[in-house]
Protein backbone atom coordinates (compact mmCIF):
# COMPACT_ATOMS: atom_id res chain seq x y z
CA UNK A 1 0.00 0.00 0.00
CA UNK A 2 1.56 3.30 -1.03
CA UNK A 3 0.45 6.88 -0.52
CA UNK A 4 0.41 8.77 -3.82
CA UNK A 5 -1.07 12.08 -2.63
CA UNK A 6 -0.93 13.59 0.85
CA UNK A 7 -3.23 16.25 2.28
CA UNK A 8 -1.19 19.22 1.01
CA UNK A 9 -0.96 17.75 -2.49
CA UNK A 10 -4.71 17.12 -2.60
CA UNK A 11 -5.34 20.73 -1.56
CA UNK A 12 -2.96 22.06 -4.25
CA UNK A 13 -4.54 19.88 -6.93
CA UNK A 14 -8.04 21.08 -6.04
CA UNK A 15 -6.91 24.71 -5.98
CA UNK A 16 -5.47 24.31 -9.47
CA UNK A 17 -8.65 22.61 -10.75
CA UNK A 18 -10.71 25.48 -9.31
CA UNK A 19 -8.58 27.96 -11.27
CA UNK A 20 -8.90 25.86 -14.43
CA UNK A 21 -12.69 25.65 -14.13
CA UNK A 22 -12.90 29.44 -13.77
CA UNK A 23 -10.54 30.01 -16.66
CA UNK A 24 -12.37 27.67 -19.01
CA UNK A 25 -15.82 29.01 -18.15
CA UNK A 26 -14.86 32.71 -17.86
CA UNK A 27 -15.84 32.91 -14.20
CA UNK A 28 -18.28 31.01 -12.05
CA UNK A 29 -21.61 32.66 -12.80
CA UNK A 30 -22.91 30.02 -15.23
CA UNK A 31 -21.15 27.06 -13.61
CA UNK A 32 -22.82 24.30 -11.60
CA UNK A 33 -20.64 21.84 -9.72
CA UNK A 34 -22.42 18.47 -9.46
CA UNK A 35 -20.77 16.01 -7.10
CA UNK A 36 -21.28 12.29 -7.67
CA UNK A 37 -21.78 10.52 -4.32
CA UNK A 38 -20.08 9.69 -2.14
CA UNK A 39 -16.68 11.39 -2.32
CA UNK A 40 -17.40 13.43 -5.42
CA UNK A 41 -19.85 15.42 -3.30
CA UNK A 42 -17.13 16.36 -0.81
CA UNK A 43 -14.68 17.25 -3.58
CA UNK A 44 -17.33 19.45 -5.24
CA UNK A 45 -17.86 21.24 -1.90
CA UNK A 46 -14.13 21.87 -1.60
CA UNK A 47 -13.91 23.15 -5.16
CA UNK A 48 -16.78 25.51 -4.37
CA UNK A 49 -14.84 26.76 -1.33
CA UNK A 50 -11.75 27.34 -3.47
CA UNK A 51 -13.80 29.19 -6.10
CA UNK A 52 -15.36 31.34 -3.39
CA UNK A 53 -11.88 32.19 -2.18
CA UNK A 54 -10.63 33.06 -5.67
CA UNK A 55 -13.62 34.89 -7.14
CA UNK A 56 -15.33 36.02 -3.95
CA UNK A 57 -18.55 34.68 -5.49
CA UNK A 58 -20.48 31.54 -4.60
CA UNK A 59 -20.77 28.87 -7.28
CA UNK A 60 -23.91 26.75 -7.68
CA UNK A 61 -23.49 23.34 -6.09
CA UNK A 62 -25.47 20.10 -6.26
CA UNK A 63 -25.31 16.33 -6.08
CA UNK A 64 -26.21 13.76 -8.71
CA UNK A 65 -27.00 10.16 -7.77
CA UNK A 66 -26.35 7.95 -10.77
CA UNK A 67 -27.29 4.59 -9.22
CA UNK A 68 -30.53 4.19 -11.18
CA UNK A 69 -28.63 4.69 -14.45
CA UNK A 70 -25.78 2.23 -13.91
CA UNK A 71 -25.23 -0.47 -16.51
CA UNK A 72 -24.02 -3.02 -13.96
CA UNK A 73 -27.10 -3.01 -11.70
CA UNK A 74 -27.92 -6.60 -12.54
CA UNK A 75 -24.48 -7.88 -11.63
CA UNK A 76 -24.84 -7.46 -7.88
CA UNK A 77 -27.27 -6.76 -5.06
CA UNK A 78 -29.18 -3.48 -5.36
CA UNK A 79 -27.20 -0.48 -4.16
CA UNK A 80 -28.60 2.07 -1.75
CA UNK A 81 -29.75 5.31 -3.36
CA UNK A 82 -28.34 8.69 -2.35
CA UNK A 83 -29.91 12.13 -2.76
CA UNK A 84 -29.92 14.09 -6.00
CA UNK A 85 -30.06 17.82 -5.25
CA UNK A 86 -29.96 20.37 -8.02
CA UNK A 87 -29.73 24.14 -7.66
CA UNK A 88 -33.15 25.79 -7.92
CA UNK A 89 -32.17 27.37 -11.22
CA UNK A 90 -31.98 23.93 -12.82
CA UNK A 91 -29.23 22.89 -15.21
CA UNK A 92 -30.63 24.22 -18.49
CA UNK A 93 -28.12 26.33 -20.45
CA UNK A 94 -25.53 26.08 -17.64
CA UNK A 95 -21.97 24.76 -17.67
CA UNK A 96 -22.30 21.61 -15.59
CA UNK A 97 -19.08 20.28 -14.09
CA UNK A 98 -19.42 16.68 -12.91
CA UNK A 99 -17.09 15.98 -9.99
CA UNK A 100 -15.86 12.56 -8.92
CA UNK A 101 -12.96 11.18 -6.92
CA UNK A 102 -11.51 8.43 -9.14
CA UNK A 103 -11.88 8.23 -12.93
CA UNK A 104 -11.58 4.59 -14.02
CA UNK A 105 -13.73 2.74 -16.56
CA UNK A 106 -15.83 5.78 -17.49
CA UNK A 107 -19.06 3.93 -16.78
CA UNK A 108 -20.02 6.14 -13.85
CA UNK A 109 -19.70 9.21 -16.07
CA UNK A 110 -21.75 7.58 -18.81
CA UNK A 111 -24.50 6.93 -16.27
CA UNK A 112 -24.20 10.54 -15.08
CA UNK A 113 -24.62 11.80 -18.65
CA UNK A 114 -27.81 9.74 -18.96
CA UNK A 115 -29.10 11.12 -15.67
CA UNK A 116 -28.36 14.69 -16.81
CA UNK A 117 -30.30 14.14 -20.03
CA UNK A 118 -33.39 13.43 -17.93
CA UNK A 119 -32.89 16.55 -15.85
CA UNK A 120 -32.40 19.15 -18.53
CA UNK A 121 -30.13 20.41 -21.29
CA UNK A 122 -26.90 21.94 -20.02
CA UNK A 123 -24.90 24.21 -22.34
CA UNK A 124 -21.82 22.07 -21.72
CA UNK A 125 -20.96 19.13 -19.49
CA UNK A 126 -17.43 18.95 -18.14
CA UNK A 127 -15.69 16.44 -15.91
CA UNK A 128 -13.39 17.12 -12.95
CA UNK A 129 -11.70 14.24 -11.13
CA UNK A 130 -9.13 14.07 -8.37
CA UNK A 131 -7.45 10.93 -9.73
CA UNK A 132 -7.37 9.52 -13.26
CA UNK A 133 -6.15 5.94 -13.00
CA UNK A 134 -6.68 4.95 -16.66
CA UNK A 135 -8.27 1.73 -17.98
CA UNK A 136 -11.13 3.48 -19.78
CA UNK A 137 -13.80 1.16 -21.21
CA UNK A 138 -15.73 3.97 -22.95
CA UNK A 139 -14.69 6.94 -25.11
CA UNK A 140 -14.89 9.47 -22.28
CA UNK A 141 -12.17 11.85 -21.02
CA UNK A 142 -11.81 14.27 -18.16
CA UNK A 143 -11.48 18.05 -18.56
CA UNK A 144 -9.81 18.64 -15.20
CA UNK A 145 -7.54 16.09 -13.53
CA UNK A 146 -5.91 16.37 -10.11
CA UNK A 147 -3.31 13.70 -10.81
CA UNK A 148 -2.81 10.99 -13.40
CA UNK A 149 -1.78 7.77 -11.68
CA UNK A 150 -0.92 4.81 -13.89
CA UNK A 151 -2.22 1.67 -12.22
CA UNK A 152 -2.56 -2.03 -12.85
CA UNK A 153 -6.15 -3.18 -13.15
CA UNK A 154 -5.82 -5.43 -10.12
CA UNK A 155 -4.84 -2.50 -7.90
CA UNK A 156 -7.38 -0.28 -6.25
CA UNK A 157 -7.17 3.46 -5.61
CA UNK A 158 -8.52 4.64 -2.27
CA UNK A 159 -9.31 8.31 -1.78
CA UNK A 160 -9.67 9.32 1.85
CA UNK A 161 -11.21 12.70 2.66
CA UNK A 162 -11.32 14.11 6.15
CA UNK A 163 -15.09 14.80 6.03
CA UNK A 164 -15.79 11.09 5.51
CA UNK A 165 -12.64 9.15 6.37
CA UNK A 166 -11.01 11.36 9.01
CA UNK A 167 -7.94 12.33 6.97
CA UNK A 168 -6.91 13.46 3.48
CA UNK A 169 -4.88 10.88 1.57
CA UNK A 170 -4.85 8.96 -1.73
CA UNK A 171 -3.49 5.42 -1.55
CA UNK A 172 -2.97 2.57 -3.95
CA UNK A 173 -3.83 -0.81 -2.52
CA UNK A 174 -2.78 -4.20 -3.83
CA UNK A 175 0.48 -2.93 -5.39
CA UNK A 176 3.41 -5.31 -5.02
CA UNK A 177 6.49 -3.35 -3.98
Amino acid sequence: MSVVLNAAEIARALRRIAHEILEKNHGSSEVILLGIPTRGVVIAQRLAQEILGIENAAVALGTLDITMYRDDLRMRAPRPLTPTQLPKTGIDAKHVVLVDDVFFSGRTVRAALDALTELGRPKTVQLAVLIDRGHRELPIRADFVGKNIPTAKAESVKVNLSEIDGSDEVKIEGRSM
Partner: protein
Amino acid sequence: MRDLLSINDLTKDDALEILDTAVQLSALSDSSNRKFPTLRGRTVVNLFFEDSTRTRISFEAAAKRLSADVINFSAKGSSVSKGESLKDTALTLQAMGADAVIIRHGSSGAPAQLARKRWIDGAVINAGDGTHEHPTQALLDAFTIRRHLKKDQGDLAGLKIAVVGDVLHSRVARSNVLLLQKLGATVVLVAPPTLLPVGVEHWGAQVSFAIDDVIAECDAVMMLRVQKERMEDLFFPSEREYARNFGLNAARIAEMKESAIVMHPGPMNRGLEITAEGADSKRSVIVEQVANGVSVRMAVLYLLIGGATSRDLAAQIGDQS
Protein backbone atom coordinates in the same frame (compact mmCIF):
# COMPACT_ATOMS: atom_id res chain seq x y z
CA MET B 1 -34.82 -10.30 0.05
CA ARG B 2 -36.37 -12.34 -2.74
CA ASP B 3 -40.13 -11.86 -2.22
CA LEU B 4 -42.33 -9.55 -0.18
CA LEU B 5 -45.06 -11.72 1.30
CA SER B 6 -45.44 -10.53 4.86
CA ILE B 7 -44.08 -7.81 7.11
CA ASN B 8 -42.79 -10.70 9.23
CA ASP B 9 -40.25 -11.46 6.48
CA LEU B 10 -38.65 -8.03 6.95
CA THR B 11 -36.14 -7.11 9.61
CA LYS B 12 -36.33 -3.60 11.00
CA ASP B 13 -33.30 -2.71 8.85
CA ASP B 14 -34.99 -4.12 5.72
CA ALA B 15 -38.04 -1.97 6.41
CA LEU B 16 -35.94 1.14 6.97
CA GLU B 17 -33.99 0.43 3.78
CA ILE B 18 -37.27 0.37 1.83
CA LEU B 19 -38.39 3.63 3.45
CA ASP B 20 -35.03 5.35 2.86
CA THR B 21 -35.02 4.24 -0.78
CA ALA B 22 -38.56 5.55 -1.16
CA VAL B 23 -37.48 8.93 0.27
CA GLN B 24 -34.91 9.32 -2.52
CA LEU B 25 -37.34 8.14 -5.18
CA SER B 26 -40.06 10.49 -3.99
CA ALA B 27 -37.62 13.44 -4.14
CA LEU B 28 -36.71 12.50 -7.72
CA SER B 29 -40.34 12.04 -8.74
CA ASP B 30 -41.06 15.56 -7.51
CA SER B 31 -38.45 17.00 -9.85
CA SER B 32 -38.87 16.99 -13.60
CA ASN B 33 -37.31 13.57 -13.76
CA ARG B 34 -40.20 11.11 -13.74
CA LYS B 35 -38.80 8.08 -15.53
CA PHE B 36 -35.76 5.94 -14.85
CA PRO B 37 -34.22 3.25 -17.07
CA THR B 38 -33.53 1.02 -14.08
CA LEU B 39 -35.95 -1.84 -14.83
CA ARG B 40 -35.76 -1.65 -18.60
CA GLY B 41 -36.29 -5.14 -19.99
CA ARG B 42 -37.84 -6.46 -16.77
CA THR B 43 -41.42 -7.72 -16.92
CA VAL B 44 -43.77 -7.06 -14.03
CA VAL B 45 -47.11 -8.86 -13.92
CA ASN B 46 -50.07 -7.52 -11.98
CA LEU B 47 -51.97 -10.70 -11.11
CA PHE B 48 -55.23 -9.56 -9.56
CA PHE B 49 -57.79 -12.16 -8.51
CA GLU B 50 -59.73 -9.52 -6.54
CA ASP B 51 -60.90 -6.12 -7.69
CA SER B 52 -58.60 -3.28 -6.89
CA THR B 53 -58.13 0.10 -8.44
CA ARG B 54 -55.62 2.02 -6.45
CA THR B 55 -53.22 -0.76 -5.55
CA ARG B 56 -53.05 -2.04 -9.11
CA ILE B 57 -52.67 1.43 -10.60
CA SER B 58 -50.09 2.31 -7.98
CA PHE B 59 -47.97 -0.74 -8.78
CA GLU B 60 -48.42 -0.10 -12.49
CA ALA B 61 -47.30 3.53 -12.15
CA ALA B 62 -44.34 2.45 -10.02
CA ALA B 63 -43.22 -0.19 -12.52
CA LYS B 64 -43.63 2.15 -15.48
CA ARG B 65 -41.64 4.95 -13.84
CA LEU B 66 -38.82 2.45 -13.59
CA SER B 67 -39.28 1.51 -17.27
CA ALA B 68 -40.45 -2.05 -16.62
CA ASP B 69 -42.90 -3.70 -19.00
CA VAL B 70 -46.22 -4.20 -17.22
CA ILE B 71 -48.73 -6.93 -17.93
CA ASN B 72 -52.09 -6.62 -16.22
CA PHE B 73 -53.86 -9.87 -15.55
CA SER B 74 -57.21 -9.75 -13.82
CA ALA B 75 -59.18 -12.85 -13.01
CA LYS B 76 -62.36 -11.47 -14.51
CA GLY B 77 -62.60 -12.27 -18.20
CA SER B 78 -59.42 -14.36 -18.10
CA SER B 79 -58.63 -18.06 -18.11
CA VAL B 80 -59.16 -18.02 -14.33
CA SER B 81 -62.88 -17.49 -14.88
CA LYS B 82 -62.73 -20.65 -16.96
CA GLY B 83 -61.43 -22.57 -13.97
CA GLU B 84 -57.67 -22.39 -14.39
CA SER B 85 -55.76 -23.17 -11.20
CA LEU B 86 -53.27 -20.82 -9.55
CA LYS B 87 -50.52 -23.24 -10.50
CA ASP B 88 -51.35 -23.22 -14.20
CA THR B 89 -51.71 -19.44 -14.23
CA ALA B 90 -48.31 -19.19 -12.56
CA LEU B 91 -46.70 -21.58 -15.05
CA THR B 92 -48.06 -19.46 -17.89
CA LEU B 93 -46.54 -16.32 -16.36
CA GLN B 94 -43.27 -18.19 -15.86
CA ALA B 95 -43.23 -19.12 -19.54
CA MET B 96 -43.68 -15.42 -20.36
CA GLY B 97 -40.63 -14.58 -18.27
CA ALA B 98 -42.15 -12.54 -15.45
CA ASP B 99 -39.44 -10.99 -13.27
CA ALA B 100 -41.93 -9.97 -10.61
CA VAL B 101 -45.49 -11.08 -9.96
CA ILE B 102 -47.65 -8.77 -7.90
CA ILE B 103 -50.52 -10.85 -6.61
CA ARG B 104 -53.78 -9.96 -4.95
CA HIS B 105 -55.93 -12.90 -4.00
CA GLY B 106 -59.04 -13.47 -1.90
CA SER B 107 -57.44 -16.39 -0.11
CA SER B 108 -55.02 -15.72 2.71
CA GLY B 109 -51.71 -17.39 1.90
CA ALA B 110 -52.05 -17.49 -1.89
CA PRO B 111 -48.91 -15.35 -2.44
CA ALA B 112 -46.96 -17.53 -0.02
CA GLN B 113 -48.13 -20.60 -1.92
CA LEU B 114 -46.99 -19.05 -5.19
CA ALA B 115 -43.60 -18.18 -3.74
CA ARG B 116 -42.95 -21.39 -1.83
CA LYS B 117 -43.82 -23.77 -4.65
CA ARG B 118 -41.51 -21.81 -6.96
CA TRP B 119 -43.73 -22.25 -9.97
CA ILE B 120 -42.15 -18.99 -11.09
CA ASP B 121 -38.55 -17.72 -10.81
CA GLY B 122 -39.62 -14.11 -10.39
CA ALA B 123 -40.12 -12.19 -7.18
CA VAL B 124 -43.57 -12.51 -5.60
CA ILE B 125 -45.06 -9.38 -4.06
CA ASN B 126 -48.16 -9.66 -1.91
CA ALA B 127 -50.65 -6.93 -2.84
CA GLY B 128 -53.25 -8.16 -0.37
CA ASP B 129 -54.28 -11.72 0.42
CA GLY B 130 -57.63 -12.42 2.06
CA THR B 131 -57.69 -11.14 5.62
CA HIS B 132 -53.99 -11.84 6.04
CA GLU B 133 -51.63 -9.04 4.94
CA HIS B 134 -51.06 -6.09 2.64
CA PRO B 135 -47.41 -5.26 3.27
CA THR B 136 -46.90 -2.43 0.76
CA GLN B 137 -49.88 -0.56 2.23
CA ALA B 138 -48.28 -0.78 5.67
CA LEU B 139 -44.97 0.43 4.23
CA LEU B 140 -46.59 3.44 2.58
CA ASP B 141 -48.46 4.23 5.80
CA ALA B 142 -45.22 4.03 7.78
CA PHE B 143 -43.56 6.22 5.14
CA THR B 144 -46.33 8.82 5.44
CA ILE B 145 -46.17 8.82 9.25
CA ARG B 146 -42.38 9.08 9.21
CA ARG B 147 -42.48 11.93 6.70
CA HIS B 148 -44.91 13.98 8.81
CA LEU B 149 -43.73 13.19 12.30
CA LYS B 150 -40.08 12.16 11.97
CA LYS B 151 -38.87 14.24 8.99
CA ASP B 152 -38.05 11.08 6.96
CA GLN B 153 -35.46 10.02 9.54
CA GLY B 154 -34.98 6.86 11.58
CA ASP B 155 -37.72 4.75 13.09
CA LEU B 156 -41.09 5.56 14.66
CA ALA B 157 -40.12 5.23 18.32
CA GLY B 158 -42.18 7.33 20.70
CA LEU B 159 -45.20 7.64 18.42
CA LYS B 160 -48.65 6.36 19.28
CA ILE B 161 -50.87 5.33 16.42
CA ALA B 162 -54.54 4.37 16.57
CA VAL B 163 -55.94 1.89 14.07
CA VAL B 164 -59.69 2.29 14.13
CA GLY B 165 -62.43 0.09 12.73
CA ASP B 166 -62.81 -3.31 11.13
CA VAL B 167 -59.61 -4.92 12.39
CA LEU B 168 -61.17 -8.37 12.02
CA HIS B 169 -61.30 -8.32 8.23
CA SER B 170 -58.47 -5.91 7.62
CA ARG B 171 -55.20 -7.08 6.09
CA VAL B 172 -54.14 -3.44 6.21
CA ALA B 173 -54.51 -3.43 10.00
CA ARG B 174 -52.58 -6.66 10.40
CA SER B 175 -49.62 -5.52 8.29
CA ASN B 176 -49.63 -2.12 9.95
CA VAL B 177 -49.61 -3.51 13.48
CA LEU B 178 -46.64 -5.72 12.60
CA LEU B 179 -44.69 -2.96 10.84
CA LEU B 180 -45.42 -0.02 13.12
CA GLN B 181 -44.44 -2.07 16.18
CA LYS B 182 -41.32 -3.31 14.40
CA LEU B 183 -40.41 0.35 13.86
CA GLY B 184 -40.87 1.13 17.55
CA ALA B 185 -44.31 2.77 17.57
CA THR B 186 -47.08 2.00 20.04
CA VAL B 187 -50.27 0.82 18.33
CA VAL B 188 -53.72 0.97 19.82
CA LEU B 189 -56.51 -0.91 18.08
CA VAL B 190 -59.93 0.69 18.42
CA ALA B 191 -63.01 -1.32 17.43
CA PRO B 192 -66.18 -2.84 18.74
CA PRO B 193 -65.42 -6.27 20.25
CA THR B 194 -67.19 -7.98 17.34
CA LEU B 195 -64.70 -6.53 14.87
CA LEU B 196 -61.57 -7.70 16.68
CA PRO B 197 -60.09 -11.08 15.75
CA VAL B 198 -59.69 -13.94 18.18
CA GLY B 199 -56.20 -13.83 19.64
CA VAL B 200 -55.75 -10.07 19.18
CA GLU B 201 -54.21 -9.95 22.65
CA HIS B 202 -51.15 -11.69 21.18
CA TRP B 203 -50.56 -8.96 18.60
CA GLY B 204 -48.73 -6.83 21.14
CA ALA B 205 -51.00 -3.84 20.53
CA GLN B 206 -53.20 -2.07 23.04
CA VAL B 207 -56.94 -2.50 22.56
CA SER B 208 -59.67 0.04 23.22
CA PHE B 209 -63.40 -0.09 22.60
CA ALA B 210 -63.84 3.69 22.59
CA ILE B 211 -62.16 6.09 20.19
CA ASP B 212 -62.78 9.02 22.55
CA ASP B 213 -60.56 7.40 25.20
CA VAL B 214 -57.47 7.42 23.00
CA ILE B 215 -57.80 10.05 20.29
CA ALA B 216 -56.26 12.92 22.29
CA GLU B 217 -52.99 11.06 22.87
CA CYS B 218 -52.37 9.69 19.35
CA ASP B 219 -49.92 11.05 16.79
CA ALA B 220 -51.73 9.41 13.89
CA VAL B 221 -55.25 8.04 13.51
CA MET B 222 -55.65 5.42 10.83
CA MET B 223 -59.29 4.84 9.89
CA LEU B 224 -60.08 1.46 8.34
CA ARG B 225 -62.72 1.00 5.70
CA VAL B 226 -65.89 -0.70 6.87
CA GLN B 227 -65.96 -3.58 4.42
CA LYS B 228 -69.63 -3.57 3.57
CA GLU B 229 -69.16 -6.60 1.34
CA ARG B 230 -68.17 -8.60 4.41
CA MET B 231 -70.83 -7.18 6.72
CA GLU B 232 -73.68 -9.59 6.10
CA ASP B 233 -73.13 -11.09 9.57
CA LEU B 234 -74.23 -7.95 11.43
CA PHE B 235 -71.09 -7.04 13.34
CA PHE B 236 -72.74 -3.86 14.61
CA PRO B 237 -76.39 -2.87 15.02
CA SER B 238 -76.53 -0.11 12.41
CA GLU B 239 -74.31 2.05 10.27
CA ARG B 240 -75.51 5.15 12.10
CA GLU B 241 -74.52 3.69 15.43
CA TYR B 242 -71.09 2.71 14.09
CA ALA B 243 -70.55 6.18 12.65
CA ARG B 244 -71.52 7.77 15.97
CA ASN B 245 -69.30 5.53 18.12
CA PHE B 246 -66.29 4.97 15.88
CA GLY B 247 -66.49 7.45 13.02
CA LEU B 248 -63.97 10.27 12.73
CA ASN B 249 -65.91 13.54 12.79
CA ALA B 250 -65.08 17.20 13.31
CA ALA B 251 -65.54 17.03 17.07
CA ARG B 252 -63.09 14.16 17.41
CA ILE B 253 -60.57 15.84 15.09
CA ALA B 254 -60.69 18.89 17.36
CA GLU B 255 -59.56 16.64 20.22
CA MET B 256 -56.42 15.51 18.41
CA LYS B 257 -52.88 16.70 19.11
CA GLU B 258 -51.69 19.74 17.17
CA SER B 259 -49.28 17.69 15.03
CA ALA B 260 -51.45 14.58 14.63
CA ILE B 261 -52.48 13.28 11.19
CA VAL B 262 -55.53 11.48 9.82
CA MET B 263 -55.03 8.50 7.49
CA HIS B 264 -57.22 6.14 5.50
CA PRO B 265 -56.12 3.39 3.09
CA GLY B 266 -59.07 4.09 0.81
CA PRO B 267 -61.55 3.69 -0.67
CA MET B 268 -63.44 5.72 1.93
CA ASN B 269 -67.06 5.36 2.96
CA ARG B 270 -67.73 9.01 3.61
CA GLY B 271 -70.32 9.37 6.36
CA LEU B 272 -69.56 5.96 7.82
CA GLU B 273 -66.05 5.55 9.23
CA ILE B 274 -65.08 9.12 8.38
CA THR B 275 -67.11 12.28 7.78
CA ALA B 276 -66.43 14.69 4.95
CA GLU B 277 -64.94 17.14 7.49
CA GLY B 278 -62.58 14.39 8.61
CA ALA B 279 -61.57 13.35 5.12
CA ASP B 280 -60.99 16.90 3.91
CA SER B 281 -59.51 18.39 7.07
CA LYS B 282 -56.06 19.95 7.16
CA ARG B 283 -54.82 16.97 9.14
CA SER B 284 -55.84 14.53 6.44
CA VAL B 285 -52.93 13.00 4.52
CA ILE B 286 -55.15 10.58 2.60
CA VAL B 287 -54.34 11.91 -0.88
CA GLU B 288 -50.67 12.07 -0.01
CA GLN B 289 -50.79 8.39 0.97
CA VAL B 290 -51.60 7.59 -2.64
CA ALA B 291 -48.58 9.50 -3.96
CA ASN B 292 -46.35 7.95 -1.32
CA GLY B 293 -47.65 4.53 -2.35
CA VAL B 294 -46.05 4.91 -5.76
CA SER B 295 -42.68 5.86 -4.26
CA VAL B 296 -42.77 2.99 -1.78
CA ARG B 297 -43.71 0.47 -4.48
CA MET B 298 -40.93 1.79 -6.71
CA ALA B 299 -38.55 1.18 -3.81
CA VAL B 300 -39.84 -2.37 -3.33
CA LEU B 301 -39.52 -3.15 -7.04
CA TYR B 302 -36.05 -1.61 -7.19
CA LEU B 303 -34.83 -3.57 -4.18
CA LEU B 304 -36.37 -6.86 -5.34
CA ILE B 305 -35.56 -6.87 -9.06
CA GLY B 306 -33.36 -3.79 -9.68
CA GLY B 307 -30.17 -5.61 -8.75
CA ALA B 308 -29.07 -9.13 -9.54
CA THR B 309 -31.97 -11.58 -9.26
CA SER B 310 -31.67 -15.32 -8.77
CA ARG B 311 -32.26 -15.69 -12.49
CA ASP B 312 -29.39 -13.31 -13.34
CA LEU B 313 -27.07 -15.17 -11.01
CA ALA B 314 -28.05 -18.50 -12.54
CA ALA B 315 -27.29 -17.07 -16.00
CA GLN B 316 -23.87 -15.85 -14.83
CA ILE B 317 -23.03 -19.28 -13.44
CA GLY B 318 -24.16 -20.78 -16.73
CA ASP B 319 -21.81 -18.42 -18.62
CA GLN B 320 -18.84 -19.47 -16.58
CA SER B 321 -19.30 -23.21 -16.98
